[in-house]
């Protein structure tokens, strides 16, 4: 999970992100970004997430917890 923050930053088109940031606070936050995340977690961590689970995770920390819980 070392590359989690840099990877998420890239997907959200931000230089960096904080664990406390709300997912829907980002300008790039839309269904396409969610799909890109689903594809990223599937290929990098072999974890399958639904769009709903990602939406419900609310923050970067929540997203990280979600991914870790499925690894």
């Amino acid at each position, binding site marked *: 999970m070392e590359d989690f923050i840099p990877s998420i930053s890239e997907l959200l088109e931000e230089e960096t992100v904080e664990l406390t940031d709300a997912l829907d606070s980002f300008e790039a936050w*839309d*269904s*396409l970004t*969610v*799909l*890109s995340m*689903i*594809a990223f977690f*599937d*290929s990098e961590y072999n974890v*399958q*997430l*639904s*769009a*709903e689970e990602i939406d419900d995770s609310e923050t970067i920390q929540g997203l990280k917890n979600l991914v870790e819980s499925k690894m």
Partner: protein
Amino acid sequence: MNLKFKNKKITGILSVIPENEIKFDDEMENYAFSKSQSMKLKLIMGYNKRRVVKEGTTVSDMCVHGLQHLFDTNKLDKNDIDAIVLVSQSPDYFIPSTSHVIQGKLGLKTDMVCLDISQACSGYSIGLTQAFMLLDQEEINKVVVLAGDTYSQKVSIQDRGSRPITGDAVSITIVEKSLTDNIIYGAINTDGSGAEALIIPAGGFRTPSSPETSEMVQDSKGNTRSLDHLVMKGDDVFNFVQREVPPMIDKLLDRANISKDDVDYFMFHQPNKFMLKKLADKMGVSYDKMPNNIVENFGNSNSATIPVNICFNLGEKLLENTYFLCLAGFGAGLSWSSVLIEVGNLDFCEIINYNN
């Protein structure tokens, strides 16, 4: 379900595509998203142009046009057709079946089998395997597999999730008995618990279309549609494809005792460029062996994308050469299916336009 066939071959493929072309850029303003969001979507998903029928044109119209073209150019003798297998989820009518409408319009012989198979994106392999089974009959020597849809007519103009991928097309594939001792491997899988992942909720017998079902409602993603429109859970479909398709192909190749390197091309159904690239990555197959350019040129026409893919990307090469092709479809049902087959020395492999 593992399937295996002997002494069958494909001898010709014709794709029929409507002339009417729509550009993604011209429809962006219909969607409740910023221009930059839509441009990003266009880039990643590979949206550009798509071909759609004008209102009133049906699958049978395009099939009749294509078959008549084959009769007129002496590529097919109408008296030789012993069976029609039509794969489509856009029937002309609930009653009778579309294959019968086509048989009647073309004045084909009555001593023949006509079957409609209700399948979408996974349908091409299912239609082919049905044709192979029919060819086991002594008196059936030539089967015409028709595959395609006009579901652009069932997608909301304000649905950015489904509208930009939809294209219309039909394909005509001639399948015959073969004297050479070849083996064709196939697989068909089913998961009806995912029926709602890709669905048109109203318009059938369960919920007939009514003024209520045509009411437009905006969803949480900003897309607006009615119950009469197609609705797709994009993330569910994506996860399903990434989870089920790679192991299906591994198993298919294992049974044939060949490796991915032995396959010349993976001619897969094309829902969008993104999905195909991710599949290729997961399977460890290079992008040039798994073409992904159909949606950007024509749109996704369900069961017709594999034959359109073959005609567009291999086309004339298949008149002279023979390639080992792995075909795979996946989508509504849920359904996923595949066929491993040598294809070559075809009598024809081309695309014609339908002008309506």
